């Protein structure tokens, strides 16, 4: 799998290259600035791009803008955005086109190499990988009024929904919570009923539906 990597800090870039190579990814290019990233995405046609939000020369959200632009040119281009901080504002911009293949994670998540690589693979396959912090912020806000449908979920259902909103499949959720896949399927069905969402087999559409629900009165 060919990866284009954009990260301006040498130590992190180097570490990411080594990590991804260790998991048999092919690094098509590892760049350190916005314009280089733009060129690499246009010319190399990677299977997935791993991009830092903040890149030179502006040191603002250059990486995010490059990623969004590349996806406008090539809809569905899988992009995993990494950041020192995660903001719903950016998550919404990334998810806005509804084509999937989007990841938005805290840089800390690379600590757990296994999970990080899993997220990269999921995004490359057209799924999503949303940072738990984004999901928790959404849930915290939804429960603000105390009477939303989210508040009617049982604690276990909430756990399942958090993992589902991150983009994990039923099998992965079952593994994480140490329950059977059948139990997870039952929980997800309950969640969809309580939240009034259409049931869908497609992992990616499932996540978008959950996020759209959580974000609906914005």
């Amino acid at each position, binding site marked *: 799998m060919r990866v284009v990597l954009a990260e301006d800090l040498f130590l992190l870039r180097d570490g990411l290259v080594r990590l991804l190579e260790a998991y048999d990814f092919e690094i098509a290019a590892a760049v350190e600035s916005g314009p280089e990233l733009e060129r690499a995405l246009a010319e190399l046609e990677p299977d997935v791009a791993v991009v830092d*939000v*903040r890149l030179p020369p502006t040191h*603002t*959200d250059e990486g995010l803008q490059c990623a969004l632009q590349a996806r406008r040119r090539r809809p569905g281009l899988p992009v995993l955005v990494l950041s*020192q901080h995660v*903001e719903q504002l950016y998550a919404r911009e990334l998810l806005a086109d509804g084509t999937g293949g989007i990841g938005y994670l805290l840089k800390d998540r690379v*600590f757990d190499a296994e999970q990080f690589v899993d997220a990269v693979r999921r995004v490359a396959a057209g799924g999503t990988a949303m940072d738990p912090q984004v999901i928790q912020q959404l849930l915290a806000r939804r429960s603000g009024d105390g009477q939303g449908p989210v508040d009617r979920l049982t604690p276990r259902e909430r756990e399942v929904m958090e993992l589902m909103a991150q983009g994990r499949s039923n099998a992965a959720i079952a593994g994480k919570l140490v329950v059977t896949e059948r139990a997870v399927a039952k929980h997800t069905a309950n969640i969809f009923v309580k939240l009034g969402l259409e049931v869908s087999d497609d992992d990616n559409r499932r996540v978008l539906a959950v996020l759209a629900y959580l974000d609906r009165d914005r």
Partner: protein
Amino acid sequence: MNTNTKSGEGGSRARGMVLAAGRGLALAVGSLPLSILGFCLSLVSMALIPIGVGALTTPYVVKGVRAYAERRRALAERWGGVHIPSAYRPAPETVNPFRRTYALLRDPATWRDLLWLLVDIPAGFLTALLPAVLVFYPIEGLALPAGLWRVYVETPGVAYWYGFVPVTDRTSAFGAAALGAVLLVVAHRYAVRVHQVHFLLTKAMLTPSQAELAERVRVLTETRRDAVDTSAAELRRIERDLHDGAQARLVAMGMDLGTVEMLVDKDPEKAKALLAQARQSSAEALSELRDLVRGIHPPVLAERGLGDAVRALALRLPVTTEVSVELEGGRVDAPVESAAYFAVSELLTNAVKHSGAGRIWVDLHHGAGRLRISVTDDGTGGAAIGAGSGLAGVERRLGTFDGVLAVSSPAGGPTMVTMEIPCVLS
């Protein structure tokens, strides 16, 4: 060449004379009623303060008089080239009319305006009118011998006085014409200067005294000291947070890793557990650093500017918050941007914590060199500046940038807090 230049000078001087006369006439006619009105309203309004009515009206009257004085300052600049500095204290926009009135009455500029109005009614009027008289009166004198005298002298022997010349017939009318000519020469020479005298008089009356400038310096010194104090306190907080938080965790991590190095062959199980602990420590250190960074300068503010930073802030609130931004695509000056962001953040925190609001609206707008932000909620109201509220802190912070804060929060709500900071977009 020489002659041409001279006639050119003479021509421009004549134009200046006529211009001075026209403007003087307009000024005299326009300003007299306004000055009288302003003076009378001020007196009446202040006299009514003891019975309460005056406290309600005085802020408006004073505001009107100030606007009028600023108008005249602008005219002096444009017509006379006379710059008149103005130094009004910002009116504290509290809900309490008595406090506002009191603050306005304490400003020496209010009394100076009043005195100026008193002087402007006779002296300002005369000095404005004089150039017009000097220019237009000679026209009558010159017209007298041309036949105009017949209109005035109806009964023979009864003189019509033009200045100090008694006009009884055509011959004496020529005397009037001579006086008119002399006056015209005087006008040609002095009309512009007399016109200037009017503006110099205005300047003499309206220029802030040394004491007020000293007062301005005092206010600036105070706000600067506040700013330095707050930033010093910030630095201490940051130092303490780093020292007790991230730094300590990194030290612990280093120790754990050292132990792991030793244990890795002897007791792999324990080494593994310590490694997990080290990873946990590093994750916690990162999250602490992240919070710290957010407290110093929020990442979205750095990356996107004030509008999106406030939008991102709103998304994290448990209360539904609508944000509307009108900044013409520009960025506000960095220090103002940061101050405004933290002020909004404080106001939103207040609204969520204390107001019991179900909805909040934030409005950011830049126009006429001012950044105006209003935060409105549909809560229970009753917020006030002072009395140890967070609003006083916000007001002090804004003071550094000559910004002001206005609160309208009747019991039962809604609460609306408006901030205004002078600044430019870049």
